[in-house]
């Protein structure tokens, strides 16, 4: 299991800033039902590992992968769930 309690230092509240450019609503209040263990948790309650090289959010009940967010200059890569593939959002110019 990749779940290492010692390495887990953040929670989904820390995703508010990185995800703000691509969500019209605050994403941390969004509710997720874990497809693996059926636990309900808001994004703010997910266990988050990071910040480098990206933020990995896991179910607080069973640590199944919920989302990954990786920032690179000018872009945000967002993977939802455990599936392959990620969405690349082009961000507004830095300093704007």
């Amino acid at each position, binding site marked *: 299991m990749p779940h290492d309690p010692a390495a887990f*230092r953040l*929670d989904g509240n*820390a995703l*508010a*800033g990185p995800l703000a450019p691509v969500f019209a609503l*605050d994403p941390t209040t969004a509710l997720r039902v874990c497809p693996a263990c059926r636990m309900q948790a808001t*994004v703010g309650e997910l266990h988050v590992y990071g910040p480098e090289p990206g933020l990995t959010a896991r179910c607080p009940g069973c640590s199944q992968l919920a989302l990954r967010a990786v920032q690179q200059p000018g872009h945000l890569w967002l993977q939802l769930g455990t599936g392959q593939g990620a969405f690349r959002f082009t961000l507004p110019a830095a300093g704007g």
Partner: protein
Amino acid sequence: MPSPPSGASAWRTARLLSREPQISTGRTLRFTVPDWPGHLAGQHVDVRLTADDGYQAVRSYSLAAPAEGDTVELGVQAAPDGEVSPYLADVLPIGAEVEIQGPLGGWFIWTPRDAGPLLLFAGGCGIVPLMAMLRARRAAGSAEPCTLLYSARSPDEVWYARELADPGPAEEIRLIYTRQAPPGDPRTTGRVGAQDLAGLPEPGSARCYVCGPTGFVEHVADLLQTAGHPRELIRTERFG
């Protein structure tokens, strides 16, 4: 081209207005942020620093007080091996500019409209967003009872000590010392235990907010659930 950001996702220029020591490694920083939209108690901001060579680093810091116009107050604890926090805490000159994104987060928040007793559990610098809640509660003149249980290593590690020594109406402050207590403290030093939760409002009515290092947050959340507080009324925020 993406549309220009607005609201919480915009990066705003913030100028450092003042720096005030809280504990040996903790500082209150006040920034002026033109057109700050206001915020709720418990919210945070992301602070972005850009080096001369273009390298950028972003870190999250909690807002410690309700906004006063364009002025926001942050609590910054210098992490021993930190890349950003020691610079913000002790080096960034007064008048210098950083970029701030926010206000951020709608989960770990409290407003005076939230009915029911308020229970705040702080571990170390986890006090910062809870202080914003306490101050918002005082500013609103809330009559709901409020207890702050604040775990600190020793008396000189207590943030906002003067303000906390003078509790407001219907407010109780419990200081829990883990390593060294002041003379005469009847409690044996050590981490928060079930006995420290005695006399709190009934489970089911009180809203619980827990903030601090991950170990503290998990431990207190477990204590609260064991005492019968429903998970739906416990909100947590972990500091890295």
